[in-house]
């Protein structure tokens, strides 16, 4: 493995670097949490970084009409190929350095994708990229729970019952989206032993996210971070509450923050407090009632949603991460 940049952990908000490498002038919504993820991601990584972005809000809103807010080099890649672009860019840099065409230095490679690009169509390419320990790259999936750029079509990450362009609640049928997949990072962590670092994060916990990006880049090899991004457009709420909704998702236990480094799982922030029993989860209705996409919910729907959150904390083998439980009692047959 080639060397990586050693990026020390940031202790407290006052030590966050002042420099911005993703600046003003992006065409995102007011209060866009995914834009904040971009800003924090590159603030953590620093100027010697190459960023690749697959199609989605953070491509279209940032780099159309011959302008950009990026300070560092950035390149677009296709919707499903954030993983392969990451591997390719890392391999390309390595080859150029090996041939002496570039100065030998550790350069961070970060490839981002939305939940459509990552949890849906790009999953196989990300999986492939995580099997290449010889290349250093981070894939960051910013998850705003829909195909938000093209006006909120349902994605694999959209929560149960949410109103999207593809799942409008009607009179005859209220719940039009009844699938549930919210565990992309854990899914990837379990099948890719060569990846040294996989984590979940949320920009409402900015220092935690900054440090997770730094840890991933410092450890090197293929790494993955899944961030949870409140989306004022698709979730239908006043943009000033983006930060608060991110916190509510964690405090209700819906979004679990953790990191797996070299096979060891640690919860972070409020999720850790919940896991060790020092903090009670807030009722999920606190989170649901703040969003127009759940405005059609009945008491029954709220109860079902709550039961799904309870399940990941109370019934799973590893709360919030793995539903698998161990049974050594013997053969079922």
């Amino acid at each position, binding site marked *: 493995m080639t060397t990586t940049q050693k990026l020390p952990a940031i202790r407290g*908000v*006052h030590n*966050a670097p*002042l*420099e*911005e*490498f*993703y*600046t*003003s*002038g*992006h*065409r*995102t*919504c*007011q*209060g*866009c*949490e995914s*834009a*904040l993820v971009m*800003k924090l991601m590159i603030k953590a990584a620093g*100027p010697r970084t190459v960023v690749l972005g697959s199609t989605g809000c953070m491509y*279209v*809103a940032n*780099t159309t*009409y*011959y*302008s*950009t*807010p*990026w*300070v*560092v*080099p*950035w390149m677009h890649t296709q919707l499903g190929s954030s993983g392969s672009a990451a591997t390719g860019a890392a391999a390309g840099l390595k080859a150029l350095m090996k041939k002496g065409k570039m100065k030998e230095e550790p350069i961070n490679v970060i490839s981002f994708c939305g939940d459509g690009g990552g949890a849906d169509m790009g999953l196989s390419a990300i999986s492939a990229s995580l099997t290449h320990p010889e290349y250093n790259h981070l894939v960051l999936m910013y998850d705003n729970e829909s195909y938000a*750029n*093209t*006006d*909120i079509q349902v994605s694999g990450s959209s929560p149960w019952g949410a109103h999207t362009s593809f799942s409008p609640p009607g009179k005859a049928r209220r719940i039009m989206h009844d699938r549930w997949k919210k565990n992309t990072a854990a899914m990837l962590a379990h099948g890719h032993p060569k990846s040294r670092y996989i984590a979940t994060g949320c*920009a*409402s916990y*900015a220092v935690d996210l900054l440090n997770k990006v730094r840890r991933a880049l410092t450890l090197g090899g293929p790494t993955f971070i899944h961030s949870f991004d409140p989306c*004022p*457009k*698709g979730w*239908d*709420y*006043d*943009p*000033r*509450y*983006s*930060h*608060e909704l991110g916190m509510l998702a964690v405090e209700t236990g819906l979004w679990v923050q953790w990191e797996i480094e070299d096979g060891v799982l640690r919860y972070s922030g409020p999720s850790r407090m919940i896991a060790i029993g020092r903090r009670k989860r807030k009722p999920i209705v606190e989170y649901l*009632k*703040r*969003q*127009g996409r759940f*405005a059609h919910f009945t008491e029954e729907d709220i109860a079902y949603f709550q039961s799904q959150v309870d399940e990941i904390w109370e019934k799973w083998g590893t709360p919030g991460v793995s539903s698998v439980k161990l049974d050594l009692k013997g053969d079922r047959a």
Partner: protein
Amino acid sequence: MTTYAVEVVYRGIFQRTLSRNICRGIVLAAHKGGKIGTAFGRYGDSPERNGIPAKYFAVVADDQLELEESLAKYEPKEVDVTICVDDTLCKGVESWAWYGLQPINALTKEGGALLVTSKQAADALLEDIHRKGMPYRLAIVSGPASFSGLWVYKDDHTDVRILGALARVCPGLVSMEAYEQVIQEIWSNEAKVRSARRSYDQTRVRPVEPAEGNTSVPFSFTKPGWTQMREALTIVGVPQGAGFRGGQGGFQPARSEVFKKFSTRTMRPIVNFQTCTKCTLCWLQCPDSCFDVTPDGRYDANLEACCGCGVCADVCPVADCVTMVNEAHFNDNSSQYDWFQRDKDGYLRWLTETVAQQKGEQRSHGFHHWGQYKEEIAAAAAASEAGHDN
């Protein structure tokens, strides 16, 4: 042979349903009068973003051929009526496609009309509206800007009040009777019909002289032709920022020269630099990197870059340190920190007064909790009964 074109300039997502209802109402009512028409959103505004100005058009013609002729254009080059459903858009419109800042009346015809929903008087609005250089008419539908989100619509009758006012300012397009018929058909709601009629009766039209209006030059830039663009359409990145105002301390990011985003703002943060505890949260949590870091560790909202989302006010732990106030009351984007440095007492006095005055008139920026719109509409109806509004 007459073709009428109407544009609705609105806040992306927040007023999408509203503007669609207006344009749809126009076209359906035109059908009642034996005309033909179509309503469509501007392609360049899609995908829409919360708050970023966008446009919807309604084009009405006497017959099919005439309509097709009008629609062969990408968008109407001039319109009979410009409807502006949020008065802060009167300062100019920077849509997210490649336009720079356009005056709100850029497409309004000579002798045409500009119809604005506002609680301001015409003279105050004309401080914001750019000088047109030709006569046109200004009409105001009195009331706050109606905002709601993508899924839950706040049905406070703004849509039909606009239609009623439109019958007044542009009688040749569609008659009031046709609007009333269509409103009844779409919503089956007598109260909405009454709201439209009341608006029709109350709307007054004020002529605007060619020399009236804001004389400042809207921000623009030179678009490179395709032959001037770089190989493989690569774009030059933004330069790395430097110290505050180019000095040693603090940090001021370099920013995009061609997309500024300030016309997205309907509220602006005002900062109390004295009670600020330098906690960093407004700066760190700002999705638009709009805060310049001063050498003494304070945070100055750069109002060329701020889009007014309000996250800073929400994360600030100090009461009234960052407050969102109505953008309509301001006429410039100058630095609050510079003012504070020049005249601490004067700035703080202004700040205290402004915060006290404006706390009550916070604009609604969409959904906060289930049932909120019902509460707001009921409160507005009660105020209307008491005669505070029309």
